[in-house]
């Protein structure tokens, strides 16, 4: 068996992933040098300086009164003006930094000190301790933080230390929950488990294995908590629970200033600016930290701040418009009208660093006739999903079609406008995805979704739509169709959901069905039912089917014709029977050897090595580095599809040197070079 890809449009994302690291890798090493990071870092450095050596930044004494010069606005001697006692506001702000930052750091630090061990232990040992601890946290979290803090101040009296201790307790649940979740995640992992089995003391495992692995997550949490604690400090000062006057603190300055607002409004502006700038800098840095450390988990970033635009996104992409074509005129205009689906010279590329286009699908020709099933077979990453999606005119962002045409029932879909294309998709071609559960809208009943497609397909009578919907569900052999129309997708099993998806694809009687690994995510028993259904639909309705799979066994079972794809190219085409009797390309032979043979004792063997990623393809044969028959000439120049018998072709220059087919003889290298 070749690798089984995960549900969803995994193949396309795999392509995107391989296309992007070149762009992302370089930038990430210097993330802190990007302009959006320099400013916050400089601000924090300034704040650190103000905390350590306030006298360096402000020459006025923050406590010296000058009643003759009270409540003055910004001036040359007093940059930000003076307060009600004539004290210099700038100087008081600088000196107040220490209170804000240290109080915030104290509260966040104490919260981490209590919350992290508690959460880690709770998540690691689980059991009763965990249940009790989490209940207690639920109770604490039922009260909004500030209420909890002032309730504690009521008990233990005011003052900055008490106030910030109270604030820290408010943040304990955050740290505890996070470290618990991390501990739960890590405890199941191999290195922790083996350490536990080898009898290491629990405390050591927690300190040595768990803590370092959650350090970055905790760092981000600490930064966010620090920002919140700084805000809480000034809020409590404003309420009169913080530092006693006359010592300057930002919250205290706001509180004092609000009393003299009518005469000097700037007094309420400056401390707030200081607070906002501080919190903003911390938030921006923790965002950057978070993005940096979670980069590997997703290609698409969603909630990041502005400024992180990948070059890929700046390329405008018409939905099926042709972007650039090198050999548009070279191809003799083929007639696509005979076939249900015809693809000629299709190339799809993804933008990479510097606006360069990296091809992912390269000059693909395919034709599916009425009533026939064409299997498009290849390993993950070969470009088959991209080809299949192009069959309905969809190129995943940020990809572009760089060459080629696509005909559905003789209509060149690359020349259609947006609404025309949507109409064609509704009426002429159905598409079935690998993961039915993510292709159905969970918010609407199945009946609603079938009805929607029928209505936009031009069926205006509601009652007729309803009976047609029942008919469709019957056709895909869903029992009790009328009742099941009112069920939501979540109420369908994987196999049944896949049938619903097929029903949706068939709703407006298309002539073409494209199915992308429709059975991969299903149990073997359920698989067979779907395959039989597709075969029957093709036979009964004369449907042309393009069936994408990585599984040669499934292809052999279902398909009339086979096209084998490798690294963006078609490498072999043939009718099904002759192909299985005598494959004419070393790659096809490798794939077929990977199949388990019934009644044979020899283990199926995979092909060593991996499909080369887009952007790493050489000039010549792309399979050469995994092929036992490769010679120098193979990689010298591009290999064309060569005639390999009646209605057969193969992209191999050593086609004639192939041994007679014998499933047990190697044609691939045992070691990948």
């Amino acid at each position, binding site marked *: 068996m070749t690798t089984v890809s995960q549900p969803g*449009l995994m193949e396309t994302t795999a392509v995107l992933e391989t296309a992007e690291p070149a762009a992302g890798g370089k930038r990430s090493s210097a993330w802190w040098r990007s302009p959006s990071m320099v400013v916050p870092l400089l601000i924090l450095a300034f704040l650190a300086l103000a905390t350590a050596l306030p006298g360096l930044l402000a020459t006025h004494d923050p406590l010296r009164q000058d009643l003759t010069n009270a409540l003055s606005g910004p001036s040359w001697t007093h940059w930000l003006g003076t307060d009600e006692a004539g004290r210099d506001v700038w100087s008081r702000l600088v000196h107040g930094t220490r209170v804000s930052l240290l109080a915030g750091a104290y509260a966040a630090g104490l919260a981490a000190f209590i919350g992290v061990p508690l959460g880690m232990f709770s998540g690691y040992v689980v059991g009763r301790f965990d249940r009790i601890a989490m209940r207690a946290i639920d*109770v604490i979290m*039922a*009260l*909004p*933080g*500030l*209420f909890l803090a*002032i*309730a*504690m*101040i*009521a*008990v*233990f009296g005011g003052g900055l230390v008490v106030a910030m201790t109270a604030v820290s307790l408010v943040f304990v649940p955050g740290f505890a929950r996070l470290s618990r979740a991390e501990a739960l995640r890590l405890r199941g992992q191999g290195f922790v488990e083996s350490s536990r089995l080898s009898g290491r003391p629990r405390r050591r495992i927690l300190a040595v294995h768990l803590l370092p692995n959650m350090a970055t997550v905790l760092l981000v949490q600490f930064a966010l908590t620090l920002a919140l604690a700084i805000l809480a400090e*000034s*809020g409590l000062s*404003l*309420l*009169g*629970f913080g530092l006693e006057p006359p010592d300057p603190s930002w919250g205290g300055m*706001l509180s004092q*200033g*609000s009393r003299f*607002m*009518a005469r000097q*409004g700037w007094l*309420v*502006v400056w401390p*707030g600016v200081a*607070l*906002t700038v501080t*919190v*903003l800098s911390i*938030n921006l840095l923790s965002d950057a930290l978070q993005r940096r450390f979670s980069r590997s988990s997703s290609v*698409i970033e*969603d*909630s990041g701040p*502005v400024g992180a635009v990948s070059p890929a*996104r700046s390329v405008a992409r018409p939905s099926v418009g042709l972007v650039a074509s090198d050999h548009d005129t070279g191809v003799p205009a083929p007639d696509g009208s005979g076939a249900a689906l015809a693809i000629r010279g299709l190339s799809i590329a993804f933008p990479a660093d510097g606006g360069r286009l990296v091809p992912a699908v390269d000059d693909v020709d395919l034709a599916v006739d009425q009533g026939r099933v064409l299997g498009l077979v290849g390993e993950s990453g070969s470009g088959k999903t991209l080809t299949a999606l192009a069959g309905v005119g*969809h190129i*995943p962002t940020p990809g572009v079609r760089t060459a080629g045409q696509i005909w559905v029932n003789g209509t060149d879909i690359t020349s259609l406008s947006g609404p025309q294309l*949507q*109409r*064609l*998709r*509704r009426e002429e071609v159905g*598409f079935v*995805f690998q*993961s039915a559960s*993510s292709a*159905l*809208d*969970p918010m*609407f009943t199945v009946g609603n979704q079938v009805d929607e*497609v029928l209505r*936009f397909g031009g069926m205006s009578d509601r009652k007729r739509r309803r009976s047609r919907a029942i008919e469709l569900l019957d056709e895909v052999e869903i029992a009790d169709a009328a009742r099941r129309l009112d069920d*939501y997708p*979540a*109420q369908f099993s994987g196999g049944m959901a896949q049938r619903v998806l097929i029903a949706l694809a068939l709703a407006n009687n298309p002539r073409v069905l494209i199915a992308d690994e429709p059975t991969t995510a299903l149990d073997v028993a359920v698989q067979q039912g779907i395959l039989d259904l597709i075969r029957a639909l093709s036979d009964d309705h004369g449907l042309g089917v393009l069936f994408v799979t990585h599984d040669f066994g499934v292809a052999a079972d279902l398909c009339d014709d086979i096209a084998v794809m490798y690294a963006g190219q078609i490498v072999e085409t043939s009718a099904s029977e002759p192909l299985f009797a005598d494959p004419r390309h070393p790659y096809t032979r490798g794939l077929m050897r990977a199949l388990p043979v019934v009644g044979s004792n020899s283990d199926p063997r995979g092909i060593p090595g991996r499909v080369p990623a887009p952007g790493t393809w050489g000039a010549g044969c792309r399979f050469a580095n995994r092929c036992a028959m490769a010679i120098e000439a193979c990689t010298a120049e591009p290999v064309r599809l060569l005639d390999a018998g009646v209605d057969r072709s193969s992209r191999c220059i050593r086609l004639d040197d192939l041994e007679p087919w014998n499933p047990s003889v190697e044609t691939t290298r045992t070691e990948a070079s």
Partner: protein
Amino acid sequence: MFEFISKRILGAIPLLFALVTLTFFFTSLMPGDAATAITDQSPLASAEDVAEIRASMGLDRPFLEQYVDYMGGVLQGDLGRSLFTSTPVTELISSRIVGTFALALVGTMIAVVIGVGAGIIAGLRPHGVVDRVVTGLATLGIAMPNFWVGLLLVWVFAVTLGWLPAGGFGQPGASFGDKMITLILPGIALGTSAAAHVARQMRGSLIGVMEGDLVTALDVRGLPRRRVVLRHALRNAAIPVLTVVGLLAARMLGGAIVIEQVFAFPGIGSLAVTAVNTRDIPVVQGVALTVGLVVVVINIVTDVVHVSLDPAARVQLS
């Protein structure tokens, strides 16, 4: 559905029970007790006075007995009386809570309307000009302390321009309209950062859906673009936003404490601050319990709304 709601309510009972217990034991940790809190205010009180007050309030009885007594009172809706005005705590709270609710409601509405709107506009064209402006403002909005926003609003719109009242909740007997006007500035102050949070969540959630498999599938199904966005993508993207709104609504009760102070607004937050300053223990306890109860109710309502709007969550229940 009914079963779900009753289950959630039953599940909240132990939590509330724990909350009452915690509040009681916690306030009993206080140095001194209600009697000294009263006599602290009058310097002439003698030790006999303290003992007398203690006896009259039942504070000389065993600790557990007091706890059982308190719990019994709470179950009957009796939260005790204020130490200084002798007004029943429930009466104090009910006279103040309407204002706080009104404030939190205005804040939540602002957060939802502005946050959802801005988030959708930004999320539909990620990395465009509008998106950059919205994300930038949202990042700023999250960093700005709500009480500072309040002070700036007072300075600009009340003190300098004189357009809106600087505080209060209308004079006693003020008309409904006058009361609503006093809610504008504190409502905005309370809603700003919440709107920023909602906008970020809405944007992220919409982008996630728009770039996800579902929208590809609906597009390939041949549905018009408008319909895919307006009917399908928005609905799917709204579900996580709903949870965030519930959290933010609960958090506004906390934010209201400082905002009420800034706007001299007679709500439950300013009641709490006064009670803490005078160490009026029954009032502090009562406010803590009430706020806890309200948060629990908000959480249940959020869950119920979530389940009633999200079929997948509903299916998971049964």
